[in-house]
């Protein structure tokens, strides 16, 4: 088994689901013959044809709407946003219809909306977004944010099989930068379960997506002086509060790290849960490391300044231990 990229893992996962269940259908701009702007659907059109891999006009809202209509007819649609940033154009269909459908009348909308998110590729304000919180704040949706090839494949398969609408955020910085050997057999990664990536006794570091790799770097640099316990959330709605809670009860210290901007990010939600439910275990302030409250800037010097850095984790960890 050769190692495959994060991107290829998603593609494989979707291919496998397309083969095992002909209710699965892909909708998106340029996803057919062209295989998608990032080639995540490459080869699908040839195998499954135009009624399973549907090239569409530039109509993000209608894409999601149509997916809802198909989902009511037994399909399991997967909608690609060419960049996840353009999901702003589909916000209404996702939050007004898809998210509330099961609640309102019992008929769910089992669809997936997926696309490349995240910065560090000089995409500027409209090709770098991390819009997960808009959806994590919308009851009825699930929000998935894989950091590894294994998870990307297992989670896209879980998302497709899920009975509820799932938002699937693929970090484009990881698309071709990480590789992994994956199991041959069918597997899924359950939505809502975090992964303990590195055990450690001193500080719980909660993160997800591309930030995981900064966490690893920081943990390496800090060890053995400070041992970080690194938790990869993998899903942020629902998020695995149990694993976070157990860890913090052990370490008594917590840092939450995300690439999304600080104010209103998932970090606040997690911190709030800890400040309530793990209050007596805490021996130091809960810290958040995130992008500052600004659009994602374009120029390399600005984006570099904007994104969280390994050095931030190192510094905050030392502060916490010194507290």
């Amino acid at each position, binding site marked *: 088994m050769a190692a495959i990229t994060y991107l290829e893992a998603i593609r494989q996962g979707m291919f496998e689901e397309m083969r095992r269940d002909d209710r699965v259908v892909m909708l998106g701009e340029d996803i057919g013959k062209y295989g998608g702007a990032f080639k995540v659907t490459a080869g699908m059109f040839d195998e499954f044809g135009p009624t399973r891999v549907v090239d569409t006009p530039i109509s993000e809202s209608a894409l999601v*709407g*149509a997916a809802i209509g*198909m989902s009511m007819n037994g399909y399991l649609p997967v909608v690609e946003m060419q960049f996840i940033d353009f999901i702003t154009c589909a916000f*209404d269909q996702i939050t*007004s219809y898809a998210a509330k459908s099961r*609640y309102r*009348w019992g*008929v769910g909308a089992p669809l997936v909306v997926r696309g490349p998110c995240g910065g560090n590729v000089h995409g500027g304000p409209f090709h770098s977004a991390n819009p997960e919180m808009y959806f994590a704040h919308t009851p009825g949706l699930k929000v998935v944010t894989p950091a590894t090839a294994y998870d990307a494949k297992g989670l896209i398969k879980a998302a497709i099989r899920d009975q509820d609408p799932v938002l699937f955020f693929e970090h484009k910085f990881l698309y071709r930068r990480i590789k992994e050997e994956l199991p041959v057999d069918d597997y899924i990664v359950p939505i809502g379960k975090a992964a303990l990536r590195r055990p450690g006794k001193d500080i719980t570091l909660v993160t997800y997506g591309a930030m995981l790799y900064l966490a690893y770097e920081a943990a390496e640099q800090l060890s053995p002086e400070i041992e970080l316990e690194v938790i990869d959330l993998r899903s942020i709605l629902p998020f695995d509060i149990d694993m976070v809670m157990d860890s913090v009860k052990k370490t008594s210290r917590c840092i939450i790290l995300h690439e999304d901007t600080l104010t209103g990010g998932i970090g606040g939600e997690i911190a709030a849960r800890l400040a309530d439910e793990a209050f007596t275990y805490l021996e130091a302030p809960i810290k958040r490391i995130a992008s500052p409250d600004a659009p994602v800037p374009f120029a390399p010097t600005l984006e570099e300044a904007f994104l969280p850095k390994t050095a931030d984790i190192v510094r905050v960890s030392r502060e916490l231990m010194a507290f």
Partner: protein
Amino acid sequence: MQTPDVKEKEEFPPPKSSRPFVKGAPDGPPVPPEVQKKLLYHMLLTREVDDRIEKKLYRQGKIVGGVYTGRGQEAISVAFTLALEPRDYIIPSHRDMGVYVTRGMSLYKIFAQYLGRRDGPARGKDGNMHMGDLRLGLVSFVSMLADSVPIVAGAGMAFRFRKEPRIAITFNGEGSTSRGDWHEGINLAAVQKANCVYVVNNNSYAYSTPNDAQYACENLADRAIGYGIDGYLIDGNDAEAVWRTAMAVTTKARTGGGPSIVECKTFRMTGHSAHDDPSHYVPSELFPQWEQKDPIARLSTRMFERGIVDEKWIADSLTDIRAQIDKAVELAEACPFPDPSEATTDVYYDPTRPIVNQEGAAD
């Protein structure tokens, strides 16, 4: 130095100065008498249900939420619904009681819904017109106007992809045509030749907004040409014309001919809602003018002339309808409100929860 303009050969066909771009209701054979009777009966039923809600239950303070009725527009929802097949999908809008009653949703459920009770199709979780039951092909719509349009495109694509002889249809007011989703959805359906029909209930007002503040074209049906599909402009108060058109466009969509837009000219014979007084913004002469075109009176007059029904038939129908309504309202009033614990159920799939409004559901 000025030289004469060099004429090159035309690169594009010259603008066509003539082209048919909007159709009227097809002539076709007369509507079969049995269909005429159904049209009339269901329009009566629709109006009685709307009236009971607006003129009685609402005034009694029993209705939860706002009340929007389709008085004067019954021909559209009833005639289209009668032209459908059992496995078709329908997304009505907020003046389409005619769809529900014609499609066979039980009056008990409808009143339970309006009273906010447990046995309404939304089980009290959502409000009055938002009634869905997939066993009847009825899809629950949301308040955001025109959100139904892409959804219907998707349903119509599903039918087409599976080569099923089914169609998906949605109704929107003329005001809703200004939303982006109306455009995106119809364009997508047109490109995919989806099995869809798009009805525009052009009742001359969107809340207080008259048509000249909503759009600047002559007819909304004209937009069909910009999507490359058929556009019809018909008299929405002529139940037979609506039915004939409905048969034409649904047959076309069902047989792979792609979507159509049908603009039905009509008039909202009420305020925007039960709590709105239209006299502030609707010129007062319009109501009596349109009263002349009342779809029920028009069809029944014709049917009298044709000898298909008589006054007694109507009186009997109304007696029957009112009795059904009385019983349904009585039952609905006895239906409990949903249990408070239901406030947070069904946000996500839960295998332990009962199936509702879809195949496999038991009432």
